[in-house]
């Protein structure tokens, strides 16, 4: 039997299957953090469902001792929508990657977010195709050399969080694979949000794209390369915590200022408001080397209704004032006639 919800531990969420990612893969760290966080969510193990598509990250459900469905390439959002339609009480996590979720499955991602299906979607972004041996992905930087782009990739990468906001996502956050102390709380925030919660996780692929996030992850550079978002706090970064972002009212763009230089004071710095969509869009667009990259909850609008909840409310409404459904009666409604 399953342990009571209050007594669940990290061990309860590890399946008996051998984990088969490459040594040093960022997925290991994410898996540990997820397994560690789930007992803290107060949800019974049998009500948790992990759904994935195809790719390295999509092996994730096999290692979770919950219900799991490893489906087909790019379509996990659609399976997850079906699961929620059939049973809205299940707690669903979609695990996907940059190729699975944004290339072959881009269309389903659009509609999952637009509909605001109440689930958590974790997008492991390593800017490369791992399982198919290293081809460039829709998030690879221009110039990425890969087996299919030996002379460097040409097409513009997309920014997952900007994409999600564009689709109408109501919860958009970013975190980092190996930083359990940040990722754990982000998972909890995503879980507590009612609707589709989109979490981009910077994830290192040590085999095909090693070190692409090092600037953001390494201690000695992190203070300058990441912008840690806290709701209600000014957008400050830098080793000296003396840099900040201001909004240029003429260009409607964020700009970096150094406090105390050119008359810039803390009052000028934009205060993070995670309910402000315009600000969220500005933040989601920030990329190195011009700007530090935001980490944390970029956007959260808890007021939007969730799709499956609405589907069920509508059914209740349709049933109101009606007799208990009777198929024999239905077949006999409309124009009928009797032959003696």
């Amino acid at each position, binding site marked *: 039997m399953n342990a009571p919800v209050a007594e669940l531990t990290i061990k309860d969420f590890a399946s008996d299957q051998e984990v088969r990612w490459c040594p040093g893969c960022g997925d290991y760290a994410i898996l540990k953090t997820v397994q560690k966080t789930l007992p803290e969510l107060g949800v019974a193990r049998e009500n948790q469902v992990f759904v994935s598509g195809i790719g390295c990250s999509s092996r994730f459900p096999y290692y979770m001792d919950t219900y799991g469905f490893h489906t087909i390439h790019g379509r996990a959002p659609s399976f997850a929508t079906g699961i929620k*339609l059939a049973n809205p009480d299940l707690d669903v996590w979609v695990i996907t990657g940059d190729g699975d979720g944004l290339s072959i499955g881009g269309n389903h991602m659009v509609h999952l977010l637009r509909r605001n299906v109440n689930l958590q979607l974790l997008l492991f972004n390593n800017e490369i195709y791992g399982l198919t041996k290293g081809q460039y992905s829709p998030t690879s930087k221009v110039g990425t050399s890969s087996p299919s782009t030996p002379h460097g990739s040409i097409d513009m990468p997309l920014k997952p969080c900007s994409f999600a906001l564009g689709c109408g996502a109501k919860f958009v956050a970013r975190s980092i694979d190996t930083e359990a102390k940040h990722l754990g709380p982000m998972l909890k925030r995503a879980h507590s949000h009612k609707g589709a919660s989109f979490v981009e996780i910077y994830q290192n692929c040590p085999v095909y794209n090693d070190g692409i996030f090092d600037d953001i992850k390494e201690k000695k550079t992190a203070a300058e390369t990441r912008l840690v978002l806290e709701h209600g706090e000014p957008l400050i970064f830098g080793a000296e915590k003396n840099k900040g972002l201001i909004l240029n009212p003429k260009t409607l763009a964020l700009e970096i200022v150094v406090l105390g230089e050119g008359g810039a004071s803390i009052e000028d710095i934009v205060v993070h408001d995670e309910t402000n969509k315009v600000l969220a869009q500005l933040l989601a667009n920030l990329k190195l080397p011009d700007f530090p990259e935001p980490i944390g909850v970029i956007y959260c609008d808890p007021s939007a209704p969730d799709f499956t909840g609405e589907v069920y409310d509508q059914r209740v409404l349709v049933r109101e004032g009606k007799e208990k459904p009777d198929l024999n009666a239905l077949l006999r409604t409309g*124009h009928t006639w*009797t032959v003696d």
Partner: protein
Amino acid sequence: MSAVEEINNQSNIAEASGVVVRFAGDSGDGMQLTGSNFTEATALYGNDLATFPDFPAEIRAPAGATFGVSAFQIYFGSQDVTTAGDDVDVLVAMNPAALITNLKDLIPGGLVIVDADSFTDKNLTRAGYSENPLEDDSLDGYRVITVEISKQVLEAVKPFGLSHKFAVRCKNMWTLGLVMWLFDRDRSVTIENLKKKFAAKPEIAEANIAAINAGHAYGETAELPTGIDVYKVPKADVAPGLYRNTTGSDALAFGLLAGGQLANLPITFASYPITPASSLLHALSQQKHFNVVTFQAEDEIAAVCAAVGASFAGSLGVTSSSGPGITLKGEAISLASSTELPLVIINTQRGGPSTGLPTKTEQSDFNQALYGRHADTMLPVISASSSVDCFDVAIEACRLAVQFMTPVILLSDGYMANASEPWLVPDIKSYKSFPVSFETESENFTPAKRDPETLARVWAKPGTPGLEHRIGGIEKDIDTGNISYDSENHQAMTDLRERKIENISQYIPEQTISSGPEKGKLAVVGWGSTYGAIHQAVKRCLQEKLDVAHIHVRYLNPLPDNLEVLLGQYENILVPEMNTGQFVNLLRSKFLFDAKAFNKVSGQPFKIREIETEIKTILGVS
């Protein structure tokens, strides 16, 4: 003797055993609405009937264009009617384009009703007439009622103050009124329908009602050509009970509701709009007070994936499309096969390949249904033979899906989906239920556990404590269900999946003979909506004492166990199909029979005569 010949032979009230009427007009003329109202009145009158709505892919083609002609054909009579009829006795042509494209199907001496007001120079030119056929001798072989319908309508609806545009739109109802007079139909149901349809615009309802009454009054009072008067088609001699009309799409919707009820499961129906399958999505969306959730997905792939996800979660997932959409669903269907989850896939076939003829019928997805997926993905395929049969076949698809934990393909087609026929309404209580029992036992549970008899995998739904497990598209260990790349295991799993599907033949009825002897010179073997035409053709031949039988196969995979022996009793096998010969190839390759193909892919169903002629050719009689 045709109906009109019968009319000619009698004065005043004539009697005919069966009549074929075709309403034809612009795609915006409301011919389908006219036809369906006439059908309803005819059913209430007590005739047996079959209909054939035949419309273009264009929603509103340019007025007067031949490619924009929309037609609705109905065959009604006092005897066993199973097709919409080979030839037309009465043609209603609302404009020159409708006349020029449909006249070839009218019998010699047939009756044609035309709206003279629409025979303008512009419309005549657009239809390709150099002379007005109402003024030269081109209609001499027919009897013609020429009425200035538009003028009559404008007069009739004058009191309601409609604009010219809305007023002229009532001309289909005026025409319907005239045809109802001709066949002694009751207008009250149509009047009721109009009131309901235009409840928010009572003046439009009233105008339409005035138009139908005016058309009827015209028949009663006008000086019509000699020999044209009300004629009676006696009521059909059919089994007693309560009847209604149904299209195939509606019957499928009812059948899915019934299947869910008999399985004691909620239905999750996920679909994407495509002609001619969308009407099923529409029909089920109306029934949300039943245990059904409908979902219009973002594409065909999302639809099937949502359905499979719903099945994983303990609902019966159903998806529906037409050929091209089914192609897109292939990968997910194979996942459902690999993970052994129930899934019902309904294919309302249309003319192909590619976009092909979206509004026309065909049976050319047989091969796709049986073989159209990657790898060895075997699954049951069943087919409906008529609009009414769709109900039972939908229930059967649900049964096979849940009893064997497998995707099931149900083949319908554009003809039966849209065509309506009278239905002796069944009692749902008379159907055997097949309630699903989900796994609850956590001791020694594995997702690979299966029923030793049916080989169906266990169904353990999320939310059940102690049964947490993972499934997916990677090959699974035969004992534990964990992922396995072991070569012997893959052989064993492939064999098991194949055996499971083949084994279904133990759980389906034996093949029966629809009509004719148990052995003899010729068996006409059909599947799907060719039933009606084959039935009538064989019936005619049997009346002429020819040695021929009709066998209609519902279960296309696996085939009924006795089919080979049964077909072996006939010297010849003829397989009429609306494709280039797909089922016939299966019979040839599986049983090594020298079965003869008889094929038609014109977008139109077989005529009875075509099959009759083929039978006689094989039997060497003519």
